[in-house]
């Protein structure tokens, strides 16, 4: 059974996010952050209250953040997390992608950021938008569109296509991050990096 021993805790949707943020923290030189996944966006409601009750949380944690995808509505995603945290008598931030200032500092970031719709995959694709391979990815999408195939989740299809072009194929966006295929120097990550600096 897992006991929380660190002062810095991040809650994310799934394994892919764990892999992505582990890589990003490593890249930024931020250490000692424990990352927990809730098992999908629909599980925040059950899992966040459980996570903040885990043995060691109350005693040890000083900085706690939740990062989830906006999907169709960034504002609704933020409010949903905020409500869950408030019900646990915690003090979430009033504004998205910010931290609250209290004994337990709490932050909520909605990906891809800038209050846009989307998800982690959109953010990753944005970091490589100038990569020549992306033209091939767009051409591929156009090609299948002409055949009458319209991928249900375009961002996921594009990331898979992009990763398929890499020297060693990464099966997911998180593993792609672990293998250094996304551009962590990209300007599109500025807002996320600013948020994550709170873990330093």
């Amino acid at each position, binding site marked *: *059974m*897992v*006991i929380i021993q660190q002062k810095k805790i991040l809650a994310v949707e799934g394994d892919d996010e764990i892999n992505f943020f582990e890589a990003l923290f490593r890249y930024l030189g931020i250490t000692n952050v424990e990352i*927990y996944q*809730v*098992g999908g966006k629909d599980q925040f409601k*059950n*899992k966040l*209250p*459980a*996570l903040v*009750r*885990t*043995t*060691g949380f*109350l*005693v040890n944690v000083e900085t706690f953040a939740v990062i989830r995808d906006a999907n169709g509505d960034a504002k609704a995603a933020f409010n949903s997390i905020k409500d869950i945290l408030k019900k646990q008598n915690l003090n979430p931030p009033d504004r998205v992608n910010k931290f609250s200032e209290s004994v337990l500092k709490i932050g909520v970031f909605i990906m891809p950021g800038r209050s846009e719709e989307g998800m982690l995959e959109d953010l990753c694709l944005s970091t490589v938008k100038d990569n020549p391979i992306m033209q091939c990815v767009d051409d591929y999408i156009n090609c299948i569109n002409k055949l009458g195939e319209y991928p249900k989740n375009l961002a996921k299809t594009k990331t898979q296509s992009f990763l398929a072009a890499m020297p060693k194929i990464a099966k997911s966006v998180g593993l792609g991050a672990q293998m250094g295929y996304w551009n962590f120097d990209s300007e599109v990550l500025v807002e996320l990096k600013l948020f994550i600096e709170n873990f330093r």
Partner: protein
Amino acid sequence: MKKVNTMFESISIEGLRVLKKISIDDFQQFNLFVGSNNCGKTTLLEGIFLLSSPTNAQLPLKINRFRGINFIDDYTWRLLFKDLDINSNIKISGELKKPKETRKLVIKPNKDESIKYTSIAKEGADKGLIDIKNSYSESASAIGGLIFEYSIKGNRIRNHKKIITKIFRKGDDLEIVSPKSYEEILQAIFINHNTIFGDVGKRFNDIQIKKQTGRVVNVLNKIEPSLNSLISGTDGVIYFDIGLERMLPISVMGDGIPRILAIILAIADTQNGIVIIDEIENGFHYSSQDILWNAIINSAKEFNVQIFATTHSLECVKAYSSAHSRLYPQEDDLRLFRIERRKDNFDIICYDNTLLESSLDSNWEVR
């Protein structure tokens, strides 16, 4: 059977043993306490027990005895007080549901009865189980006993005057001054590893007299479907019938079933009351925890009893959650409370069964 739901909804304890101040609300029918050693779990149970029978002045001696303290001297009384400090009273209050009432109990040192004891050790008090000793030291002021000041607010009681009970030493005996007009509606039993088999024979007799044996058999049937009946032999042994040519003594079932039976009998004998079980997992193999909770939940529902228990065992917590989910998936009447102690601060982390399942599913520690 009329159900009266005489359940505790909340409790607040101040100055009892290690507990400087602790408050818990949201008690349900099933309440399991976890937490590290010396976080106050057993003391919390003792507080609930004291408030269940707040005019029974012998209870402090009983709860001492549960901890293996089988003697009385001025130090024995002090053991109840935080840091042995008799200048601060013990305060226990709680809310009952149906009849809705608030109970307040203040336990004070009986300084008036402080005397310099001259005689030494005497057997005989409290059914011969307690040894009265004299260890009065000139360096500390002695107390001769305790004073219970109890008050209730609620529809049941019109007169809200304080009810006073006293227990103190008089010579080499214990003297108890009890209120005449107060009738307690709650019944509570405290079980721990050492006392679990203590009253089994008596409880089974009570249950037979109350014609409740069939209901106990019904509960046991869910564990052992072939069990037809239970009887008490003249030898004091409980025998069971599983359709063989003769009945078998319960002891042949190993240690687990007799323990489960002892708990079921306590529950059946405390109908509409409270059963308190310290370190409930003791004596049970980890694989039997599910059977144990199955029996406890079934019998507590059958006899309308509120359960308070403590454990250190993860298997016990898992079985508690899964047995309840399986038996009563629609009912939100289970709680797990973790007590987190930081010096003299006690934080309570409360889980309902949905949260508990979420934590166990993710392998996040709840104890």
